[in-house]
């Protein structure tokens, strides 16, 4: 239920790398809908054709291939754009010149949540097996903590580069690269900037792959995040984002409106134990306004649930406001599916009274509500 990060595709990360003069291979981006043939004519082959899709293991899934000729590239691109993995489609294709690989490294700057700091991570054993390396031979992974107040020092960056075995000109290139990664991290408010592999070629270091995640909470001061957010979300998720609650579609048939991520998850767990399945995860968020609860309920109705379960434990959220929103939707959706309501916490008495006056029962105990829901679902 990660709601804090925006994940960039490889080509989006590389656009940022390019802005910071991080060396990349020659590249060409074809966004879905653009004329493939016309674009490809500008590029030299052989080259590597990489699908831009929000899933991992692209090589294993056959979503990255080498094209020897322009014709081969054309048919690969056409095929890639028709591919789907789960709910994800290929959003763009990145075509890059082949790098002359002398050695593959790993490097990233990442947020260490529990350490509450950023860490520069590097290894001389980069490539697809890096997690295996980390698990079996942790000594092959170099980690350098970075103080946000002091920033990444050149001395620290040099220390890491030397441990990777760089010397001479390549040492300077590596230091420069690490400093640039740090600039990206702080200026773009990234939680991860990763290059794997970072390739040593006869002409220097090249970032062959790139991954970034950005902090959604920083959207108010990062235009890039606002721009990307518009592209990344489904229509339902956009509504959720606009109104201000977190929402994930699931496989069941009971619409869920609850408050607090933990309580919502616990509710789904308890339902699962009773053989009931939620259709969605919807945490209406702290201090929900009447409009937010109303929009959330409307969104749930659009999914045609068999029943709706509302579970609110008011802290900063007020039961009276939730009750008013429920009444409003009931007036507007007389044919709405059966609803089971549990309301407790801040302004509980007021909320329950508002519903009771309209002839609606609300439970105070969650298990009573789950029992009622079982009855409703037969």
């Amino acid at each position: 239920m990660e709601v804090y990060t925006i994940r960039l595709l490889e080509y989006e990360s590389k656009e940022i790398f390019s802005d910071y003069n991080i060396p990349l291979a020659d590249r060409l981006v074809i966004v879905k809908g653009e004329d493939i043939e016309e674009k490809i004519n500008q590029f030299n082959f052989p080259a590597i054709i990489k699908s831009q899709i929000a899933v991992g293991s692209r090589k294993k899934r056959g979503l990255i291939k080498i094209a020897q000729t322009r014709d081969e590239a054309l048919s690969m691109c056409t095929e890639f754009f028709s591919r789907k993995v789960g709910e994800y489609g290929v959003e763009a294709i990145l075509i890059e010149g082949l790098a002359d690989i002398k050695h593959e490294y790993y490097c990233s700057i990442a947020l260490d949540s529990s350490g509450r700091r950023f860490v520069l991570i590097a290894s001389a054993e980069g490539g697809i097996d890096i997690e295996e390396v980390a698990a079996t031979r942790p000594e092959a992974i170099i980690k350098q903590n970075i103080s946000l107040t002091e920033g990444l020092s050149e001395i620290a960056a040099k220390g890491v580069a030397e441990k990777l075995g760089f010397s001479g000109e390549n040492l300077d290139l590596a230091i420069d690269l690490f400093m640039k990664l740090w600039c990206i991290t702080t200026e773009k408010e990234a939680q991860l900037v990763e290059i794997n592999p970072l390739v040593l070629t006869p002409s220097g270091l090249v970032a062959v792959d790139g991954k970034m995640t950005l902090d959604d909470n920083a959207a108010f001061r990062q235009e890039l995040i606002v721009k990307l957010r518009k592209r990344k979300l489904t229509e339902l998720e956009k509504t959720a984002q606009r109104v201000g609650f977190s929402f994930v579609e699931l496989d069941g048939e009971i619409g869920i409106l609850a408050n607090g991520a933990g309580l919502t998850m616990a509710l789904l767990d308890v339902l699962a134990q009773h053989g009931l399945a939620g259709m969605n995860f919807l945490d209406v968020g702290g201090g929900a306004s009447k409009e937010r609860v109303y929009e959330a309920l409307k969104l749930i109705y659009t999914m045609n649930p068999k029943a709706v379960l509302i579970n609110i434990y008011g802290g900063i959220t007020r039961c009276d406001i939730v009750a008013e929103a429920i009444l409003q939707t009931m007036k507007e959706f007389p044919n709405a599916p059966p609803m089971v309501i549990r309301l407790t916490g801040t302004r509980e008495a007021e909320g329950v009274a508002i519903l009771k006056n309209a002839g609606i029962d609300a439970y105070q105990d969650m298990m009573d509500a789950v029992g009622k829901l079982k009855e409703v679902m037969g």
Partner: protein
Amino acid sequence: MYITEDSKVVVQGITGNQGKFHTQLMLEYGTNVIAGVTPKKGGQEVLGVPVFNTVQEAVNEYGVDTSIIFVPARFTYGAVLESLEAGVNMTCIITEGVPVIDMVRLVETAKTKKLHLIGPNTPGMLIPDKIKLGIMPGDMAHFGDVAVIAKSGTLSYEITKALGNADVGVSAYIGIGGDPVRGKTLTEAFDYYVKDQGTKVIVLIGEIGGDDEEKVAQYIKNQKVSKPVVAYIAGKSAPEGKRMGHAGAIISGNVGTAQGKIDALESVGGKVTETPWDIPEAVKTYL
């Protein structure tokens, strides 16, 4: 010391809707709210509480030692920094949506100054019948000797209320908040209540994601903690999340699933319950 019933509290953002509403609830609970701060609104009164322009003025005038933050996310960094610079011992950040980089900076500053931060995106802290520093319902449980430490808000209300209904008293309730970077980690809060003489049993309320629960399990093992621990982990039925990049796994190993957390806590003697409502019975076996 985090807070006591004698803590002198300043509310930052007292003139806003949420700030005012919850100041009232805290006052009704008996919390010693003696000042409020909103820039440019100094000189006013809110619910009989004097408002200052800066935290420093409230410290000079009344010796406040505890702050609670209700300002919007974009102003939270400045507000918390002000509290830290005024030397306030505990700053509790209720605000949701604070940028991660701001929190990393604030945690660094708090550490240097040896001051406490809790949150953001937290319900706050409660010592039943003594002090409520936050937005949680005040009537969940009476005072007693079981500490409740939680990552999530409403789920912890649910469990704390279940304890109260089962006549189990609570020595302290502390929400560490649901964000990736927090003023107090689960392990730091846990350490505090392991050492707290008034706490006999610790209830941990965790959820999928991150490695906080695994870290607590490691701490229990390393420090040979003998105080009983009862836990509930939410998210057993959640679909597996998508992961991106390798750095997370490199930093903390492959952790984060509900089962992984349950196994880690059980392996060090923790009792993990099947549902939130099994917690009181499990706790009672230790009292």
